[in-house]
C-alpha cells in the first residue's frame, strides 16, 4: 500500500516536473491577486496590515481551487484514472498519493512565498511566522476538500465554475481560522487556539476526505 502511494506520488511529481509551467502559473496567480489589493484599496500601511491575513488566505483559497482542475481531469481524459481504479490497491491510498502531490505542487509553494508577500503588507515578523504555519496546516485541508469537489465534477460540463461553487463554501472554516490566527498574532492575543483548531480540521479531513473522494471517483466512472 505504501509502495502504491509512493508510485502515485512519484508519477505525479514527475508529470508536474515535466509541466513545470502549470505549477509556476498557479504561483504567479497567487502573487498577482495579492498584489492587486493594495492597488485597489490604497497604500496606507495600517490598513494593509489589517487586511493582509484575509487577502493572503483568500488568494491561497483561489489559487488552490484553480489548480484542482489538474488533479483528476487529465487522468480521466487519457484513461489512466480508470487503470488506477483497477490497480488492485485501495483507491483511498491512491487518492491520498494524488492529494499529497497536489499539495506539494500547489500548497507548499504558497507557504514558501507567503512571507515575501506578507512583507509587502508590512506584517510584523511574528505574524509572518504564524502566517507560514497556518498555511502549512491549512493548505493540505484545502487540497483534501478540493479533491472531493474535483472528483464530483469530473467530466461534468462547466466543471470549472461548478467546482468553485461546491468547494469554496466548504473552505470557510479554514479561511476563518487561518486568517484568524494571523490576525490574532498581530493583535497580540496569541494564535495557539486557532492553529490547534486548524490541526483538528486537518485530522478530520485526512480521515474523511479521501474516502469521499474515492467514492466520488467511482461514481464519476459510471
Amino acid at each position, binding site marked *: 500500500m505504501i509502495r502504491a502511494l509512493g508510485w502515485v506520488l512519484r508519477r505525479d511529481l514527475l508529470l508536474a516536473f515535466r509541466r513545470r509551467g502549470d505549477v509556476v502559473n498557479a504561483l504567479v496567480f497567487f502573487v498577482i491577486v495579492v498584489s492587486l489589493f493594495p492597488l485597489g484599496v490604497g497604500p496606507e500601511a495600517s490598513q494593509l496590515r489589517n487586511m493582509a491575513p484575509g487577502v493572503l488566505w483568500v488568494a491561497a483559497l483561489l489559487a488552490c481551487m484553480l489548480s484542482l482542475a489538474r488533479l483528476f481531469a487529465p487522468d480521466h481524459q487519457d484513461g489512466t484514472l480508470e487503470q488506477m481504479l483497477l490497480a488492485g490497491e485501495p483507491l483511498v491510498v491512491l487518492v491520498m498519493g494524488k492529494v499529497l502531490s497536489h499539495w506539494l505542487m500547489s500548497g507548499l509553494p504558497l507557504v514558501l512565498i507567503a512571507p515575501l508577500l506578507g512583507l509587502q503588507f508590512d506584517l510584523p515578523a511574528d505574524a509572518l511566522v504564524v502566517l507560514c504555519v497556518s498555511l502549512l496546516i491549512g493548505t493540505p485541508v484545502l487540497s483534501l476538500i478540493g479533491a472531493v469537489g474535483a472528483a*464530483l465534477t469530473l467530466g461534468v460540463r*462547466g466543471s470549472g465554475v*461548478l467546482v468553485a461553487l*461546491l468547494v469554496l*463554501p466548504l473552505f470557510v472554516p479554514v479561511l476563518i481560522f487561518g486568517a*484568524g490566527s494571523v490576525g490574532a498574532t498581530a493583535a497580540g492575543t496569541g494564535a495557539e487556539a486557532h492553529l490547534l483548531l486548524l490541526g483538528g*480540521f486537518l485530522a478530520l479531513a485526512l480521515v474523511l476526505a479521501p474516502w*469521499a473522494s474515492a467514492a466520488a471517483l467511482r*461514481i464519476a466512472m*459510471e
Partner: protein
Amino acid sequence: MSKSGKFSLYYFSSPQSFYPLAGALQPWFAALAAVLCAAGLYISFFVAPTDAQQGESYRIIFIHVPAAWMSMFLYLVMGFWSGVGLVLNTRLSSMVATALAPTGALFTFIALWTGALWGKPTWGTWWVWDARLTSELILLFLYIGFMALQAAIDDQRRADKAGAVLALVGVINIPIIYFSVQWWSTLHQGASVSMKSAPTMAATMLLGMLIMALGFWMYSIAATLARVRCVILERERHTDWVAAEIGGQK
C-alpha cells in the same frame, strides 16, 4: 394497499407504490400547514405583546427563526435520504433528497431576507455579519451547489450519487461551519445585539415560533411530496405504470 395486504416499508420504497401514497398524503400535510401557519400568524400578531426594547419589529422573528430552523433541518434530512440512497441504493430516497433541495434553499432565502429586514431597524444596516446570517448565507451556497451539481450531470444515477456524496460532506461540514462562524463573529464583535439574546424569550413567543416552525415543516413535507411526484413521473416515464397513470389523466 398492496395486493397481498401486507404492509411493509419495502413496499413503499418503490416509486410505483409511493406515487399514489404521496398523492394521498400531500393534501393532508398542506391542510395542516395552512392551519398551523394561520395559528402561528394569529399568535405572532394578536397574542404576543409588543417588545419593550425593539417595539413591533421583533415580530419578524416569528418567521425568521422558524425559517432558519427549517433550512438547517431540511439540509440534514436531505443528507439523511442521500445517505440512505447511497448505502441501500434505493432510487426513491435519492429522489426525495433531490426534491428537498429547492424547498430548503427557499427557506434559507427567507431566513436571509427576513434577517436583513430585521437588521435594518435593529442595527441600522441591512446586512450584519452576524453568526446566524453568515451561516445561512453559506448554507444557501451549499444548497445551490447541490442543485447545480445535480443539474450539470446528465446521467441520472450518477447525479443522484454525486449529489448524495456532496450532501453528506455538507452535513459533516455544517456544524463545523456554524461553529467557526460563531467563533469568528464573537471575536470581531460585529453586532452588539445578537438575535438570540435580543428579546426575552416569553412563553407566548416561543409557542408562536414553535407553531410557525411546525407549519413550515408540514409545508415542506407537502411541497416535497408534490415535487417527488413530478420527479417520479419524469424518471419512470419508460415504465408501463406511468404510461397507464398518464393515460388515466387524460
